[in-house]
Structures are given as C-alpha cells and as structure tokens.
C-alpha cells in the first residue's frame, strides 16, 4: 500500500478511529491492533513475504532473550554471530544474489574465462533492508548491553513491523520505538495536529515536487546520449531534488503517521541541501541510516580516533557498504565510495565538527557560507549521477555530456521544474529551524489554513496516477 494512494487514504482514518476511539484506553489491545494493521498494510502487497517478517521477528525476539541469559562469553558470541548471519541471509539472498552472480561472471571474464551465467528473477521483499537493519541494531544493542532484551513478544513484533516505518524507515532504534510501544499512550492534540501537517508537507514534497521533476529527469537519463549539455544539467538538477523530495516526503509522511498514533519519531532529514560540507550533509540526510552506519560500522572499525589513513579507510568502507545497502550494483558502490572520497579533504583539514551555523535565524548568510553550500550541493549532485545511471558506462557518458559548449544553449527539455525548485528552496530555507516547514503556529489561523488548502489543492491537482517511492526498491 502506497502512502500516496487512495487505499491508504481510507486505511489510515479507519486505523486512527479504531486505535483511539475504540481502543483508546486499552494499551494491550492497541498494540494487537497495531500489529494486525501493520500485517494488513504489508500483506496487501504480498502475503507470502509477511512470513519472512514474522520469522525475522520471532528469531530476533528469542535470540535477544537468550543473549541476555547466557553467561558464557564464547557461547554468547557464537549466538550473536549466528543471529547476524540469520538476519543477513534473507537480505543477501533476495537483494544481492544477482549482483554476486554477475560479479563472479565479471571476475571470470577478467581472467580470461568468458562464461554465460544466467541471473535469476527475484522479487525483492518490500522494506527488507529497513526491517533487517532495525532488528540488527536491536541484536547488537542487546549483545553490547546498551539495551535490555524485550520480554514482551507483542511489543517486539509491533516494533519490527510498525507500519508507518515498515517499508522505507526511518530505521528507529529499539531504545526509542520499543520503549514507546511498551508505554501507555494518550491522545495528544498538538502531536496529532503536527503529524497531520507533516503528512501534508510530505505529500506535497512527493506528489507536487518529486513526481513533477521525475518526468523530465527520467526523459533526460533515458535519452541523455541524444541530448545537449544543458539538458544534462537540468536532468541532474531535477534528479537531485526529486530524490530528496521523494525520500524526505516519504519520511515526513511516515513520521506524521507515527505521530497520529502517538509516537513522536526521530527527524530523518534536516534540510540536507543547506549543508556546508559533506560531513554536515550526512548528518542531515537519511539521519536514521547515517547514524546506523556510524554506530554499527564506522565506530566498530575504529571511527575517527585513529591515524588519518585508518580514518580514511573507515570512512571509505562505511560509505561503500552504505552504497551497497542502497542497491546491488556497481553504480551504488561507486556512489558510496565517491561520497567517502569527498570526506578526505575534511579529514586532513580537521573540519568535521557538528557546528551548524546555518541554522541561525538570519535570512542572509555570508558569501563564504553560500559558496560552501553551493559547492557541497554540486558535489552531492555529481555523485547522484552514479546513483541514477543504469551502469558505470552510462554514468560516464552522462558526465561526458557536460564537456561541450552546448551546456550554454537553451535546454530542449522542460525547464518549468526550476520554478518548482526555487519555490521549494525558499519554503525550506524559511522553515529550516523547524522539524518541517509547516510548523508555523505563530501565523494567524487564516493564513495557516490558506496555506494548508493551497498545498492540498496542489497535491490534488498533481495527483492521479500514484507513483512508487524511489527508496521502496532498497
């Protein structure tokens, strides 16, 4: 079920009404209902893959308890690694089998054996990368004794399959979400209203901005070899905003829905395109995933408390894995490594710090900061070419298209999207201190409602054929 579909527009109010009005004061029943709703939400796409989620939940619930009870360190370690393997096996099987087959075939041809290996048609279970990372973090946290193992099977099953976050995150940790599931929830007016606003903003990002830009971006990326340089610039500019609005839009709807059900959630995007360097960008883009890689890959590898060369290795390995998490292909790997390489100058200049001056209240920023933002944006956009391209060759051909004088010619593709981008950037800039730009309680009610209706009208006008979210395939 897509968040931007009529089915979901019917499903959500039914869940909301039963959850609060019928089961409002019965916490246990609320959790049972949440689990059922989550399974219906997922099962409407594919009932078979629901078995995988149930299996994953059950295994991790049992292993979590066992890890806490076992005193023998060796046995504990053994069980921990077994759990990691069990968690990763379906992910590797469903997501990386073809990539591994192709890589093996490529390797053989490199050493002179040209073999024709057939790849398999494998349907990727929706959300597998997300819920696997969720349960992995749980097992690691229990093993390292950061959290206590859940003894409530219902709560744990709800944690794994919680429908607002099931398909494309945010990847919320057990320390936050599971704790909330275990607690009684009371209807909170302000939280619910804010959730509604966030859903509205998410739908606007997805339907009005992302889907509009996608049309031209897709045309350019499909036919770029026949297009002029300025089309290439338009194509990547549009895709840069498309992927942001698509995924941040999804996250906003997901977080908004969580709020409607009484779960304040973590912020997953914090205006990343206003970042002054790559480190800041990754602190603001898909925050739940970035932090996951930081806590479970980068820090265990040694983090930044080591010599520069090791530090660089840790960064590159982390980003390469992050790239592969996004997709099983060389393009994603290159995209990840490229982002890692962007870090290297920062490491040598030791300018990775959490300083975030851009969130000060002034509308005007210094030229230096402006140039930093622009240069970071250009680097990020450049890396997205690899993310979007069909192959490395395709990406290189796309880049080649920039090196012609035709980048100064009038684009042959639609440029109307630039107006959308400008309006969107202005709104985001104005709202950059808030969790989402529609947190505008200080405005008079008439203005606020005017804005809500305007957004609703735009969403309505641009909706019609709902399109899937890019991050669904991850």
């Amino acid at each position, binding site marked *: 079920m897509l968040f931007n*579909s*009529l089915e979901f527009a019917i499903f959500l109010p039914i869940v909301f009404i039963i959850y*609060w*009005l019928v089961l*409002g004061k019965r916490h246990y029943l609320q959790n049972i209902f949440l689990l059922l709703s989550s399974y219906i939400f997922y099962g409407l796409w594919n009932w078979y893959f629901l078995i995988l989620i149930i299996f994953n939940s059950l295994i991790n619930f049992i292993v979590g308890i066992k890890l806490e009870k076992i005193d023998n360190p060796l046995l504990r370690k053994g069980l921990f690694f077994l759990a990691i393997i069990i968690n990763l096996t379906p992910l590797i099987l469903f997501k990386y089998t073809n990539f591994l087959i192709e890589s093996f075939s490529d390797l053989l041809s490199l050493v002179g054996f040209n073999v024709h290996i057939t790849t398999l048609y494998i349907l990727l279970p929706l959300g597998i990368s997300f819920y696997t990372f969720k349960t992995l973090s749980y097992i690691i946290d229990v093993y390292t004794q950061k959290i206590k193992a859940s003894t409530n099977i219902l709560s744990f099953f709800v944690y794994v399959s919680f429908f607002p976050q099931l398909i494309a995150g945010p990847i919320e940790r057990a320390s936050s979400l599971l704790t909330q599931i275990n607690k009684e929830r009371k*209807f909170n*007016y302000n939280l*619910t*209203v804010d959730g*509604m606003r966030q859903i509205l903003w998410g739908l606007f990002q997805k339907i009005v901005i992302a889907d509009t830009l996608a049309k031209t971006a897709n045309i350019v990326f499909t036919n770029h070899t026949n297009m002029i340089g300025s089309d290439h610039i338009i194509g990547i500019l549009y895709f840069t905003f498309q992927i942001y609005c698509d995924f941040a839009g999804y996250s906003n709807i997901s977080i908004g829905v969580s709020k409607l059900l009484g779960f304040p959630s973590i912020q997953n995007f914090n205006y990343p395109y206003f970042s002054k360097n790559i480190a800041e960008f990754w602190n603001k883009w898909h925050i739940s995933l970035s932090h996951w890689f930081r806590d479970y890959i980068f820090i265990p590898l040694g983090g930044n408390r080591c010599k520069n060369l090791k530090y660089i290795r840790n960064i590159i390995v982390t980003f390469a894995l992050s790239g592969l998490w996004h997709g099983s292909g060389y393009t994603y790997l290159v995209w990840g490594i490229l982002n890692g390489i962007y870090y290297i100058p920062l490491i040598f200049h030791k300018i990775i710090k959490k300083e975030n001056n851009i969130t000060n209240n002034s509308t005007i920023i210094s030229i230096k900061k402006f140039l930093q933002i622009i240069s970071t944006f250009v680097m990020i956009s450049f890396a997205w070419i690899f993310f979007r391209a069909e192959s490395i060759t395709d990406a290189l051909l796309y880049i080649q298209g920039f090196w012609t004088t035709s980048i100064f010619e009038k684009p042959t593709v639609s440029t109307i999207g630039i107006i959308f981008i400008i309006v969107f950037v202005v709104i985001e800039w104005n709202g950059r201190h808030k969790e989402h730009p529609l947190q505008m309680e200080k405005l008079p009610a008439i203005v606020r*409602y005017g804005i*809500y*209706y305007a957004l*609703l009208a735009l969403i*309505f*006008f*641009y*909706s*019609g054929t709902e399109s899937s979210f890019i991050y669904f395939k991850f």
Partner: protein
Amino acid sequence: MKKFILKLLLFSIPIYLVIGSFFVFDPFKILYSYNNLNQSAIDGVPLNNDFLGTEVYINQVKQYQYDSFVFGNSRSMGFRSKDWQKYLKSTASIYYFVASSENLFGISKKINFINNTNGVIKNALVLLDYNTLYQTKESNKFHNKKHPAITKKWLPFYFSALDDYLGRFTIEYIDFKLFNTYRPYMKNIDNKTDVSFDPQTNEWTPSGFNKQIESEGQLYYKNRSNIFYERNNLQSFHPPVIEQKQLLLLKEIKAIFNSQKTNYKIIIMPLYDQIKLNDKDIKKLNNIFGESNIYDFSGINEYTKDMTNYYEDSHFKNNVGHNILNTIYNNQI
C-alpha cells in the same frame, strides 16, 4: 480528541464535496442507468467502452437475441457488421463484444459470461494480434477494466473509478462541465476522439478519421508522415507469446465453442508494423482450434503494404476487413 475530530471534519468539507461530485455527476456513467451511451466521450470524459459494451449487451440481449459475436480490440472497427452479415444466416443477430485494448483474458471472460448467462453463440469472429494474446490478466487501469458482472469484482471496479476521478481530473472535469470549453491544461479531457457506436450492434465507427480523410484527401497521409513511418520490407517475427496461461484461456474458449457448436473464425489481424505472429504460436492455435479456423494476416502482405489501408499506424480501414471476410468465407486463402 473531540476537538481534533471536529476540526478535521470541518477542514475536510472540500474533500467531501469533491467525492460527492463523483456520485452526483457520475462522470464515467457507471453508477446509474442511461440511454444513448453510444459515444466515446461524454462531457469530455473518455468512457470505459468495455463496461458500456457489456452494459448494452445485458440490457438488450433479450430484445435482439444476439447470437453472432465479434470479439477483439478497437481494431474490430475494420470489420463491418453488414459485411459479415452477408456470410451468415439472415436471422443472425450480430453484437460487437469488443473493447479498447482488449486482451485474451477479456475475450475468454466474455465468452464465458455469454455461456453462463444462457446466451447463444452461433457465430464468432475472434480478432487477435500479439498484444491481445500477450495479456492474460485484467488491466489495472480503470478505462480497461471489465464490467463487474463479468469479473464478479464489484468493489475493485468502482474503487478504481473513484481513484481515477480524484485528482487533477476532477478539476478539469468540473471546469469543462461548467464552462463547456476545452482549455490547453486539460490533459484528461477528450475533445478529439470521435468514435460512434451503433446502438444495436455496438459496432464502432471511426467518424473522426473518416471526416479527416474526406476533408484532407491525399494530403491526409502526407500530413502524417511521422505516423506512417517507413518500413524496411524485411519480414520480422514477434517472439512466441502463447504460454501456459494463454493455452488455458484458449482451451476454455474452444470448449465453449464446442459446447455451443459455434461456427467461428479466428483472425490474426494485419497491422501496419508488419511484424508476423510467431510460427510457434500459429501452430499452437492450429492445434487448439484446427487449421481451417485460423487465418493469419499478420506480416508483410497485400493489406499491410499499402499505407492507405490504415487510419493511422494502429487501425486498418473497412475495405481491409471487407476483403478479409471475403477471403475467409470464400476459402480463397
């Protein structure tokens, strides 16, 4: 909680109005009964001709006692009922049980429907091409969805219609309905397609094309050189398309034809692209229906060579249908 629900209900009033307009105006003409639905679009709204064709059949079968059927997609308009009637008994009552983008699933379901509702199929023309054979499931698009009386899926059908209505289309539709003026932003409003349907036989007539050809004469083809693209005169073939699912549907059709003792002809239509249906598929069709009932006009031949046999690159003219019927019924093949 009460405050929230009340505010939300008030805030959503425009949404109720929009949803209400679907039930009041019934833009796709699927909720209430109508006369004179023999048009491709009403108030600028392209109608689901598959639904309407079935609706007309249900309403009129008793009156006209249909017993001779044409099954296929919009290309069926290349075959005129008066041409076919010549080869049938004078009492034969023809019905075009066709639809835009019809597929094998639809043809099979319709034949089943006639059979299950005690209809009679004395004669049948089954018009096939690669695309018709390729699809074995119902389309997800509302405009190609079957009548729920055929599929027994009532809720998904009406839900899909509402889904199609809500959004940009609503605004375009209400604007067009209020002012009866076509504006450039109206992407979903159809002010071009001009196809009329015979109220008795449901036979389609491409009135719009005929008018254009009449007014433009020979320039019609020159003006559309991008549509009538050059072909390379080398015979190419479609990949084999008849697999297990298609075989099941075809055998189902054959079983009903046998039980009804239907006199049927299966025609592979001559398309502008000149790509021939794969020999393996022809063999499979021959095996099921018998060689004497299969007539393959796909590929390079006298009909497909001449571009003036076509309205555009998808639909052939009546003279082609006329000659094909003549060839088939006079065993000149």
